[in-house]
Structure formats: structure tokens, C-alpha cells
């Protein structure tokens, strides 16, 4: 079999690992005000978004009752350069409408209690490519659709221990639902010498996780106009299951139907009748420590910064999860009111890859792509309500190795844009 056809077989056989974005620990930014400030919110958190960033902050909520809702439009483009036969780029894109946060706060005695629903990670990737003839390949059609979403839903309580110090706890239910469908259809040209006609690979995988994510936070004001937050959380999985189905068929010009593997290079992967396999087992999520500082010099200006540490996690042979390295990400944000009714917000954040660097000469490596993002928004306040409109832009670059059993490395770029519309209301 020619080298190019071998590469294609490897591509067709590439293991599919169904995890939304296990390569980054900072994914979705949630909340009305936090979105515009790039998620630099641990030192602020005095509104419903505080239930996600630092539950202790809601004890300082200024309004007795607040509810918030966020809708975002997300577009993403990922390019794996020269992924196919060292010549053609792999392109994946996504577009989704994502109502990714809802929360409500209510005072109860000396406590502030609340309930929130957040989509903390969401991936929706589509790939629909029909490659032109190259080498011994007449036509190669590739269709992939991947959806992976993580929800955190649950209650939060917080109270002031003293005026300057508060403590809070969120207990979120973790639910993850992921699905991957991939179809690859390859037609060989007459020039190839193996008498092959067609190769078809279909792969389907479905994953479900349930768990809890306790989040403990404190917030402290050491001096006037300053606030410091510290939060620790971890997701503990209670149950997880993954179902996979793979089918692989190769035909030639002499035989009717799919070839049995002894007829094709003695490779047991060259024919796969549909078979469903199930895996039970839980991966490990990292410990996350978030610390933030906020400076409130005037009632019109606010500056904040967060540092987010995630620990390393172990690999899982059963599920194919490769484990992750520890990361340290950062975010900075600013809010400025030019009148009591208008405010602008801006921020920047990082989402560093939690995978090891891709090393030349090795195979089967996870992609390593560092992402940087910028956020901005404008808000209009009215009696009891606020409406915000904003944009998030992110850019990532790094290396990937999407072809199994190949040492080829693809330079990878990610370009994303999100438009968000949020509302909040006090009553």
C-alpha cells in the first residue's frame, strides 16, 4: 500500500477521545458583569455570577434579589495545517447559541442564598470536507460532528463572618453529555496498485458523567476599597459511562462486500463489523484554586485580576484519557462608568494548554495549543435592570498530532468570536 494510502488508513483509524476540551482548564466565561471583565471576578462576585466565581462574594450583594440571564453566540474555527498527506489543511468550525448562565439571589435571615445554572464548558465542532484528488486517492469525504457540554447546577449559601470577611459555599451538580459522530469515505483512484475500491469508517461515541462540584470561597477586605478572594473547588464524579461503536469496511474491485482482514495486509483493523462497547469508569478532574484581587478606587472605576491554578490529573487506560499537567492561568478586568446609566467593561485572559508540549519524533500526542482572549462590553442601567452587549475574541496557536501512529505534527490555530447579550434585574 502506498505511503499516502497508509497515512489515510492511519487517519481513518485515529482513536477518537471524547472529551470536550480537556486540553484547557479555562473555557466558558459566565455571568453578566464577569463576561465583560474576562472572568477576573473572584475579588468581586457580588452578584449571581459570584455563585460560580466566588460564592463568598454574594454576601456583599447590594440588591436584595437579583436574577441574571446570559445568551451567547459563539463561532470557532480550528485549522490543522497540512494534516492530510502533508498537503491539505483540516478545518473544523462551530457555531452555537448558548444560554450559559442563570442565577438568582435572595436574602434569608443573615444569609444570602442563591441558585444558579451554568454551562462551564461547551464544544460543538463540525467538519465537512470533500478533498480533491491527490496521489492514489480519487476522493476523500470527511464529516465529523462533536458536541460536548458540561453543566453545573445547584445552590449557594454565603454569610458575612464580620463586615470585612465573608464565606460561601456552592454545591453544584456536575452533568456532562457528549456525543461524537464521524464518517470518513475514501474512494481510491485507478492508479493505485492494491486493487482497492473504497474505504469507509464510521465512528460513534457517547459519554455521560454525573458528579458534584463543591466550591468553597472566602472574600476579605483588608483595607477600604480593596477586596481579595480565594476559592477552592474540585469536581468529584459519581458515575460515568461511555459507549462506542465503530464500523470499518474496505472493498476492492474483485470481491463483493467488505474484505475480511486476512485479505488486506493482515491488519485486523481493516474490517470492523459494527460493535458496541461500553466503558464504565470515571476520570479525575483537577483541583482548582482561584485567587483574585479587586480595587474599587471610586464608584465609577473597578480593576480586578485573578490567577487560576489547576492541578495535574492522572491518566485512565480504560477510557483512553491521557491525563493532564498543572496549569496557571490569569485574567484581568476593568469596569468604568461614564454616567450612572452607562458602563464599559474590558478584560483579557489566558487558557493555557494542560497537555505536554508536542515533541518531534513521537506519536499519539495530544494537541498543545495556548489560547489568549480579549473581552469587552457596554451596559445600560435603568431603574432595577441592566442590559449588556459584548464581544469575546480568542486566538490560539500551537501544535497537534491528529494522525494516529504518525510522527507528523500539524501547526494548529484557533480563532474564536463570541457575541453575548445579558440582562439582570433587581426586584
Amino acid at each position, binding site marked *: 500500500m502506498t505511503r499516502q494510502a497508509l497515512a489515510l488508513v492511519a487517519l481513518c483509524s485515529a482513536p477518537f477521545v471524547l472529551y470536550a476540551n480537556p486540553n484547557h482548564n479555562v473555557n466558558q466565561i459566565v455571568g453578566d458583569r464577569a463576561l465583560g471583565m474576562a472572568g477576573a471576578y473572584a475579588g*468581586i462576585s*457580588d452578584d449571581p455570577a459570584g455563585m460560580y466565581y466566588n460564592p463568598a462574594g454574594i454576601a*456583599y450583594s*447590594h*440588591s*436584595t434579589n437579583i436574577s441574571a440571564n446570559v445568551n451567547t453566540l459563539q463561532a470557532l474555527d480550528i485549522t490543522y495545517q497540512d494534516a492530510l498527506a502533508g498537503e491539505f489543511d483540516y478545518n473544523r468550525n462551530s457555531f452555537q447559541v448558548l444560554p450559559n448562565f442563570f442565577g438568582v439571589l435572595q436574602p434569608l435571615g443573615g444569609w444570602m442564598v442563591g441558585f444558579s445554572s451554568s454551562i462551564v464548558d461547551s464544544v460543538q465542532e463540525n467538519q465537512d470536507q470533500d478533498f480533491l484528488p491527490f496521489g492514489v486517492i480519487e476522493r476523500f469525504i470527511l464529516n465529523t460532528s462533536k458536541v460536548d457540554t458540561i453543566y453545573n447546577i445547584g445552590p449557594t449559601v454565603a454569610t458575612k463572618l464580620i*463586615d*470585612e470577611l465573608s464565606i460561601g459555599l456552592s454545591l453544584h451538580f456536575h452533568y456532562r453529555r457528549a456525543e461524537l459522530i464521524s464518517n470518513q469515505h475514501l474512494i481510491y483512484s485507478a492508479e493505485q496498485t492494491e486493487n482497492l475500491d473504497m474505504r469507509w469508517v464510521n465512528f460513534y461515541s457517547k459519554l455521560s458523567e454525573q458528579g458534584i462540584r463543591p466550591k468553597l470561597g472566602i472574600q*476579605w*477586605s*483588608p*483595607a*477600604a*476599597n*480593596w*477586596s*481579595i478572594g*480565594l476559592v477552592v473547588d474540585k469536581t468529584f464524579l459519581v458515575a460515568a459511562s461511555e459507549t462506542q461503536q465503530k464500523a470499518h469496511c474496505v472493498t476492492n474491485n474483485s470481491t463483493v462486500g467488505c474484505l475480511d482482514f486476512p485479505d488486506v495486509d493482515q491488519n485486523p483493523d481493516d474490517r470492523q463489523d459494527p460493535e458496541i462497547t461500553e466503558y464504565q469508569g470515571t476520570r479525575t478532574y483537577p483541583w482548582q*484554586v482561584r*485567587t483574585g484581587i479587586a480595587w*474599587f478606587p471610586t*464608584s*465609577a472605576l*473597578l480593576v480586578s485580576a485573578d*490567577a487560576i*491554578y489547576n492541578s495535574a490529573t492522572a491518566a485512565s487506560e480504560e477510557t483512553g484519557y491521557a491525563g493532564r499537567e*498543572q*496549569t*496557571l492561568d490569569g485574567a484581568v478586568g476593568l*469596569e468604568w*462608568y461614564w*454616567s*450612572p*446609566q452607562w*458602563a464599559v467593561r474590558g478584560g483579557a485572559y489566558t487558557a493555557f494548554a494542560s497537555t505536554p508540549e508536542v515533541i518531534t519524533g513521537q506519536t499519539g500526542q495530544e494537541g498543545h495549543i495556548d489560547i489568549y482572549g480579549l473581552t469587552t462590553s457596554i451596559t445600560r*442601567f*435603568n*431603574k*432595577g435592570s*441592566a442590559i449588556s452587549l459584548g464581544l469575546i475574541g480568542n486566538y490560539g496557536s500551537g501544535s497537534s498530532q491528529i494522525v494516529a501512529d504518525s510522527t507528523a505534527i500539524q501547526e494548529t490555530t484557533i480563532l474564536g468570536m463570541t457575541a453575548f447579550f445579558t440582562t439582570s434585574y433587581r*426586584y
Partner: protein
Amino acid sequence: MFIPKFLGLVALPLMLLTGCSTVSPDSDFRARLSDLYQPVDSAADVSAEIRFGRTVAARYLGGVDGVDNNLMQRYVSTLGAYLVQYSGRSDIDFHFMVVDVPTINAYAMPGGYIFLTSGALALMQNEAELAGVLAHEIAHVSEKHIVKALNIRGLNSSASLSQLASGANDAFRVALDQATDLALDILQEDGLQRKDEFNADEIALFTMVQAGYAPDAYSDYLLRVSQTQGDALAQVSQTHPSFVDRLDNLTSVKNANGLNGLDYALLVDRFKAFNP
């Protein structure tokens, strides 16, 4: 290595915890401009406030009588109307009455209904002192302290003051009765929040100065009240912060704003002409 960075992450807030003195911060520093913004009231808001205040005033007057001295009542009302010009609440008509009650106190109800006890008036020595007390009560109305204390807002709110004041159905009538009782409890027993009383004292000082009255007269009156013996002082002590704290606060405000020793009007003779 990330471990030293992680330790630094945790150490920084801890260092700040141990390294900084425990300075009590301004608890409102988190409030943003939109939180502090007080939009112009709608006509419905004002109308509801007046109707509710009238109900509370009527309930109060059901238990007391006005002092039977029309000249004196007119004098107090005229002075009050003069001070209202500096209140920023030109949208409501203020009403002033001296009630025949020996205790020392004054009450400000929503919508501009202000009552002064005869006991409080008897302790005054000049018109500037009367202006200070009236300005204090006017400030409670203009800042809506009692409305905020009742946690009732205007229209478009789930607990609508307009709906309560309308008494449109049994539920609203019951709620109105409860709100009225609560308002009177605040005025006569519990008192407003300390910060609201201090706020009213500060505004009273500035109102007196703008109106041409000597601001020291207000402090003199409070000092005289604090030295009064007997039951007459009981209610005002219960419903207001301590006189020591109030006088300290007034001293700070005068010092900070250069209001000490202003040779402004006291108007002793005119006051005594209406209060022999």
C-alpha cells in the same frame, strides 16, 4: 515548576492577611455608580408616597391632638415651607403640625407630613434651633429614609407602594394596614437606621446654612435635650442614636466643611413672639 507558583498564589492573600492592619473599610465601597443612582421619581411614585404618608399621618393623628394655637402653627408651617425650598423635593407639598405631646420628638412621614411635639418645641430657645429640627425631618422625607426602611418601592416593583396605597382589594388593604403599623413602629419605637439619622443631621446643617441660620444652634439644642431629665427624653433616646454620637458627628461635619462659628441668624425675638 508550578508548585512554587501555586504556593505563591496561596501565600499572597495570607501575607496580606497578616501584614495589613485591620482597617475597617467603607462598607459601601462596592456600590457602583448605578447602585447609587437615584432616578427621578415618576408621578405615580410620588403620588403613591403621598397617599401612603397621608394614611400613616392620619393613623398617628388618631391618637394625638394638635396644639390649639393657630398663630404658632402658622409660624412653624411658614418656617417649614421656607426650609423646604432647600430640600430638593419640590414635587410634594409639606405639611407641618405641632402636636400636644409632652415627650421630646419629631416625626417625618412619607409624602411630607411632619410633626413636632410640644415637648420638643418647649425646649427650644430660638428660631435657628427650630429650623434645625425641621430641616432634620425634611431630610428624612427628601432622602426617603422611612420608605427605604419599609423596603417598599414605587411602581414596577413586586411590592408596589402604589398598590398598597390604593387599597384596591382586601389583600392590599391588609398589606397597607401592616405597612402603616410598621411605619409607626419605626417612628415611635424602633427608629430609623443610624446612618440615616446621621445623614439627616448632616443635611440639616447644610440646609440651615443655606437658609441663613447659625448651624451651631442645632448642636446647642441637641446638647440641651441630652441634659434633660425624666421621661420626656425616653422616646427620642429610643428612636435615635446617642446624643454623644450625634454631636460628635455634627462636630466632624462642621470641622470638615468650615461651618464653625458662623455668625448667622438665631432670631430669638421672633421665636419668642410666637412661643411665649
